[in-house]
């Protein structure tokens, strides 16, 4: 019973991190129709910047918003100097469909190399701002701690704020319209290029939040090849797809489902099968529910 509860809690908390990453992926997808495989690299870079902010200000809570701003700026810059050029140059011909995917992969490599140059191939540590010691019920310690609770709340809050932004504001309307039909949006007077950059910036901030929160929650360390970020890269994408790629609510649900499934496989089957389980889950969802778990409904509402 205790194991069951803890497995569920582990699933939910790790799932909420995947959800944050999935939100970032969905944001870029919704505003540009590009799956950004560099998202995890950008999150990593923002987290390194956050690490520097912590050293300057000696406070995680000051560094977190600063890292999100930095993440937003980095993402906006990437769109301005790089993705715009790409859309112009490689939007035609047989490679058009795969060019953005390949380009974001290249970007991932550049970001990694850049991080290694500046910070070296070593582990850096980010201390947990609040306790990560599990709550105790009776004699048992639960796999949920103030930090994990904060992460869960942060993911839900971010999802809520972004959903409101997308569904209820003019900016959100412009973001959605630009993604679905850039030309019609331009004809309606929407400055599509700027709106896309904004979409990247939002995603950059969300990714930065994921990186900053995941680092103290995981092994607490940061390195250019941090395994957490490879995980985020793949699992964030899987979570986004489970949720249908279009919907923020879907991204959060996708993250939680993935987190739970993986936690149960880990506890009750085998640690070696975690990654392949992610793949199998992805394929099953793609084949059985091509539009994601809430894709059909969500897409209609979106």
């Amino acid at each position, binding site marked *: 019973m205790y194991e069951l509860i803890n497995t569920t809690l582990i699933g939910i908390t790790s799932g909420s991190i995947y959800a944050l990453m999935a939100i970032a992926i969905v944001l870029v997808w919704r505003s540009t129709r590009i799956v950004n495989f560099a998202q995890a690299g950008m999150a990593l870079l923002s987290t390194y910047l956050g690490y520097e902010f912590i050293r300057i200000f000696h406070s995680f809570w000051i560094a977190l918003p600063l890292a999100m701003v930095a993440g937003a700026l980095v993402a906006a810059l990437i769109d301005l100097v790089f993705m715009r050029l790409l859309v112009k140059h490689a939007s035609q011909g047989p490679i058009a469909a795969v060019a953005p995917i390949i380009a974001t992969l290249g970007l991932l490599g550049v970001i990694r190399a850049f991080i290694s140059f500046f910070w070296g191939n070593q582990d850096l540590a980010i201390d947990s701002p609040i306790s990560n010691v599990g709550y105790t019920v009776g004699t048992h310690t639960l796999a949920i701690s103030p930090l994990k609770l904060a992460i869960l709340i942060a993911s839900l809050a971010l999802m809520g704020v972004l959903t409101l932004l997308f569904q209820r504001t003019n900016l959100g309307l412009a973001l959605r319209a630009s993604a679905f039909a850039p*030309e019609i949006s331009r004809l309606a007077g929407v400055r599509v290029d700027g709106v896309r950059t904004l979409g990247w910036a939002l995603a950059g901030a969300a990714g930065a939040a994921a990186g900053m929160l995941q680092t103290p929650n995981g092994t607490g360390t940061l390195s250019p090849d941090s395994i957490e970020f490879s995980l985020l890269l793949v699992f964030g994408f899987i979570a986004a797809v489970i949720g249908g790629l279009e919907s923020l609510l879907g991204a959060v649900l996708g993250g939680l489902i993935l987190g739970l499934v993986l936690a149960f496989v880990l506890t009750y089957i085998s640690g070696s099968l975690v990654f392949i389980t992610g793949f199998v889950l992805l394929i099953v969802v793609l084949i059985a529910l091509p539009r994601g778990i809430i894709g059909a409904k969500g*897409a209609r509402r979106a």
Partner: protein
Amino acid sequence: MMSLRISNLTVDHGAIRALDDVSFEIARGQLCAVIGANGAGKTTLLRTLSGLKSATSGSAHWNETNLLHGKAEQLVRHGVSHVSEGKSVIAELSVKENLDLGALWRRNKKESAETKTFIIETFPRLGERLEQRADTLSGGERQMLAIGRALMSKPELLLLDEPSLGLAPLVVAQIFQAIRDLTTSMGLTVLLVEQNAMGALKIADTGVVFNLGKVVANDFAPALIADPAVRAAYLGY
């Protein structure tokens, strides 16, 4: 002087010359039908005027605004609205959102709300379906929505690309009538590109006939209808 003035406009499409030394004018408040065979350059003309496509040479002005130096999103702010070919609505958005999109850039929200009320009065069917997704609408409704979206941008010059495409004859008649009424009631200047040449010329004040990127005729609409050469080539009798 309020008018659309196009002179010596040339536009290339890769190696192909889509518009070749095109010149004509439309006075304010006029509805001008642009007719011609497929590939005559009609759509290219609209895309160039609305800022989606760049010209090779020549000039095009709406009043004082140089149409060749602006991007589409800027020209909208100068009163140029373009309803592109094939029901220019965003399928994934609701009817209301499609309408709102056209007025996002307008600062005066009270005015845009009034515009919306006016559009819903003009096209009551849209009013009944405000919360539905645009792709649940019928073809005619979508065309109404596309025009409505363009009207939300408070246009002075309206560029319409084949509003009758794929619609049933009865619906086509309704749409044409609506276009004629709106032109008059709102004081719009309209450039109406149409395959349905007769239908368009019947509601138009003037007409321009295109062939292989060149203007081959430019006259009052009734005169064009009466012209035997035009009748034979484009009106089918």
